[in-house]
């Protein structure tokens, strides 16, 4: 079977191994994300979800296996980090907006500094991405003037401004109360509807079920069960059954 670049997966992990000292955290993890697909990584605390996600953007170096992201061989030591990170957007649980910059400056910084965009173009772009997350009126506010949900949406907008080919989300709503969670999830839902390729670690099972094209259930550093969102309602392994049964499928 021939693979032309446009049909190759955006993200693919093959037999990825990763240890922190003596602790084996990823034990042969494989999965792929096709263009426009939404993949949800779920699993118990400590099962290796964040580590797997961080390996995709090379915040962690793998010990073995192969990771290809938008054509970049991420597992290789000579990977072009700047090129990789222009193709990948990542959003963290703790927003990590730059506190000394306005929302507009937070958003325009990377497009100007990395892509050499002119200031006026970058400002137009900032308006556009802020509109996407429903925060146009916060253009000139500082991060500390925003609620947690607004900060997280601004962080998503900041990533979008780099026009990534894939977005990674690591429990982006875990620090938020339910009301603010809902506004952030709505933004992510809209992104999915617009065709953005996404990998997200989430504890929001209801949300994962509604939005994910595929679920990867991790258990002890392995992909224990994977399949369409329907595996959440009819799991085949006892571990996933127990995981979705222990109140995780509340919403």
């Amino acid at each position: 079977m021939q693979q032309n670049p446009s049909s190759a997966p955006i993200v693919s992990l093959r037999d990825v191994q990763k240890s922190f000292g003596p602790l084996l955290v990823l034990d042969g993890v494989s999965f792929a994300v096709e263009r426009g697909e939404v993949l949800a990584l779920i699993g118990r605390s400590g099962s290796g979800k964040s580590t797997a996600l961080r390996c995709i953007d090379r915040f962690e170096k793998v010990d073995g296996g192969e990771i290809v992201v938008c054509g970049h061989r991420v597992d290789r030591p000579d990977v072009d980090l700047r090129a990789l990170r222009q193709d990948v957007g990542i959003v963290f649980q703790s927003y990590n907006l730059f506190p000394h910059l306005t929302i507009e400056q937070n958003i325009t910084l990377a497009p100007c500094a990395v892509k050499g965009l002119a200031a006026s173009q970058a400002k137009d772009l900032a308006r556009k991405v802020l509109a996407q997350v429903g925060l146009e009126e916060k253009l000139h506010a500082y991060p500390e003037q925003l609620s947690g949900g607004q900060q997280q949406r601004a962080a998503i907008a900041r990533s979008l401004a780099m026009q990534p080919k894939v977005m990674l989300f690591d429990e982006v709503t875990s620090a938020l109360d339910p009301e603010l969670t809902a506004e952030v999830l709505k933004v992510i839902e809209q992104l999915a509807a617009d065709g953005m390729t996404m990998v997200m670690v989430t504890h929001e099972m209801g949300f994962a079920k509604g939005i994910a094209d595929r679920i990867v259930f991790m258990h002890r550093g392995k992909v224990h069960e994977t399949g369409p969102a329907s595996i959440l309602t009819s799991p085949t392994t006892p571990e996933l059954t127990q995981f979705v049964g222990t109140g995780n499928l509340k919403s």
Partner: protein
Amino acid sequence: MSLQLDFPAVLERWPSFLGGAVLTLELAAFATVFGALFGTLAAVGRGSRSPLIAGACKVYVEAIRNTPLLVQIFLVYFGLASLGLKLSAFTVAVAALTINVGAYTAEIMRAGFEAIPRGQIEAAEGLALSRLQIYWHIILLPAIERVYPALTSQFVLLMLASSVCSQISAEELTAVANYIQSDTYRAFETYIIVAVLYIILSLVMRAGFWGLGLVLFPRRRRLGTPL
């Protein structure tokens, strides 16, 4: 026992006092600017991945922080002279004070750098910013903001400590005072005036740093949070 103070006899030397005060302020200004740059580089160097650079910066900081300023000044003064370099007392004083305050700046800035949450740097890395861009856009200003009171106090201290430059006959405020008191035999009055002038210089510097803070940290100004 009676205390007789004769200020007019001393005050008629006001042009000399003024000249000395201006020179002290100039010394402090040059050493502050160069020391801030030099010290910040040393702070960055201490975090270097190269053990050689990190080690050299650490040795520099520790050597300076554990020797008296006057000895450092003499080392620079006689060291440059023995190398055949003929520099003015002012230049030597600026060089020595820069080296001195650079070490303290390095130590303060290092604390500032370390206070930047890891997540800030990861977010910047995730946006494809280079190491240099991250230092420049993400780390530097928030780090300075965090340590600004400590940093500016250090620069005021430097200005006060510059009085030992009188020892290499830089014509700063204390040197002028030494000269005037030996000329007028009015030592107490002279040093009272000098003390007052140093207080005024300190206030001038603090006011300057306050103004600079308004420019450097617009968020503080907008949100009204004091430093």
